[in-house]
């Protein structure tokens, strides 16, 4: 389905202004099949804005996005989701008062079989619970005992796990994660990193935003450096040191020609 040379997801010249703040100043992005692409940058560099544009949560003022070589334009997160792009937002985007299963299936609920589902549009709650259970088990999330539990009763780490599980369960083309480990403990972070590797190994490309350099250098295949609303450089993890990446990121060093 995807050729190894055409980027799965490509952005060109994305621009987004908020009043007189320019969040994206014409940024590019290339995500190759099967890779983990890390996006790093200072606070306010436009990382979240970039991935929001890719996931339809934000409509850019200008610029183009292509998915598997075909131009797309996402008017809402639903459009991106329908194209197989799943996103874990920095703000998590879960509904605290709903249970885990409802959250997992939010916006793509399963309906009962037969007339009950097609005409009366009744949800198949049991099926969703069981499926949620299976998903969580599959990801090794064992501490969540009851998929009928309200998300607001979960710890921060468990909530993060639900958001990640949702993306992993439904993503069919691309998975995007915006600082998924920011609030997590060492062990929980570890589990998320393992999950990212696991997803990649199944052939799905992943975009990972993180401020944690050791994490980035552990899992990323390539590193996209965002600076002042633009892509400053794109580095191969194998060919760059952590300190050089940080130096480019903060503007202390200019990237080499080959990196641009």
């Amino acid at each position, binding site marked *: 389905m995807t050729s190894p040379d055409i980027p799965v997801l490509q952005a060109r010249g994305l621009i987004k202004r908020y009043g007189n703040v320019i969040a994206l100043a014409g940024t590019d992005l290339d995500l190759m099949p099967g890779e983990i692409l890390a996006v790093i940058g200072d606070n306010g560099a436009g990382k979240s804005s970039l991935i929001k544009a890719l996931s339809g949560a934000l409509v850019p003022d200008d610029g183009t996005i292509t998915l598997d070589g075909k131009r797309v334009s996402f008017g809402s997160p639903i459009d991106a989701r329908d194209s197989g792009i799943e996103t874990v937002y920095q703000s998590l985007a879960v509904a605290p008062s709903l249970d885990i299963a*409802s959250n997992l299936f939010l916006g793509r609920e399963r309906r009962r079989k037969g007339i009950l589902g097609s005409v009366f549009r009744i949800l198949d709650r049991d099926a969703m619970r069981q499926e949620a259970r299976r998903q969580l088990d599959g990801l090794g999330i064992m501490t969540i005992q009851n998929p009928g539990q309200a998300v607001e009763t*979960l710890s921060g780490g468990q909530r993060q796990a639900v958001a990640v599980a949702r993306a992993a369960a439904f993503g069919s083309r691309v998975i995007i994660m915006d600082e998924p480990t920011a609030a997590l403990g060492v062990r929980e972070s570890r589990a998320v990193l393992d999950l990212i590797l696991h997803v990649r190994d199944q052939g799905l490309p992943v975009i990972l935003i993180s401020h944690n350099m050791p994490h980035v250098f552990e899992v990323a295949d390539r590193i996209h450096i965002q600076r002042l609303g633009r892509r400053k450089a794109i580095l191969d993890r194998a060919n760059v040191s952590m300190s050089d990446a940080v130096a480019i990121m903060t503007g202390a060093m200019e990237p080499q020609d080959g990196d641009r």
Partner: protein
Amino acid sequence: MSTTLSTNRPSGGAPSEGDHPHRSPLTRLQHLLHAQATIGPAVVLLLAVIVFSLLSTRFLQPANISLVLQQVAVVGTIAVGQTIIILTAGIDLSCGAIMVLTSIVMAKVSAEHGLPGVLALLLGFLVGAGCGLVNGLLVTRLKLPPFIVTLGTLNVFFALNLWYSGSATIRGTDMPALLLWTGQTFTIGGTRVTYGSIGMVLLVALVAFVLKNTAWGRHIYATGDDAEAARLSGIRTNRVLLSAYGIAGVIYALSAWVLIGRIASASPQAGQLENLDSITAVVIGGTSLFGGRGAVVGSLLGALIVGVFRNGLALARVDVLWQTLAVGVLVIVAVSLDQWIRKVRP
């Protein structure tokens, strides 16, 4: 190091608050009774009933209970629509105005223009839905707070009602029987019950079921909980909000039907207090004004609590003045008690 995505809580996890996939009917019932949003108002209602039945022997007579059901039918029906709006973190001050307008439309087109009852009802539902959609469009397109939108449309709908009705009450005797049907009674176990009261109870059951068992229902909760999170989760929140206001409008039209049956006429002066009364019912029923938490069954209980209170005080021959005061105190006490009950739960 573990390679599973697992987190740990010192106490072994939060109490389970949802339902388990496989349960006996009894467990289901038990869970229903303990559902967070309705246990509080149920206890308050029980307390009120106990107190009033001690104060007056008439209180628990079937005829009186049927009476209370009739008396809360209108506000109880409106409260169902109000609950949906409040669950989306909105508030509807225009509900009473929509009800009056639709009742006048139903009555007038049939009484004066000779439209058959069914068509008059249908037209009323259309008008109700239209008014609701106006609210919904203003909320979703202009991004105005619902409080402000409905504060504005409250005046608009009420003025339209006065204009269309010419401020004249339309008598039931001029209307087709169908419009008055909600006021008709039938007998269960020797007690007369109106179709309007039964309609209210069925509506509550239906909406409770829909909220729980359809995607739309889940989306109402998710949108009210955190609209931005819901949008990012792939919910078309604007569409959800619009449909919520539209459906609430239809429910207000239903309440107009109940109202016509109840007073056997259509009065353009009605409905001016229904906004605060329905909000009171919803709030006593345990639904959060911040959205996303609550249940429509609670609102029915809330309406019943107020109804039982008014009726009980009247039977106990308490003066109107003190009834007003008592209802004020009731609102505060009932909601405090509800909050306290929730805290006490494990």
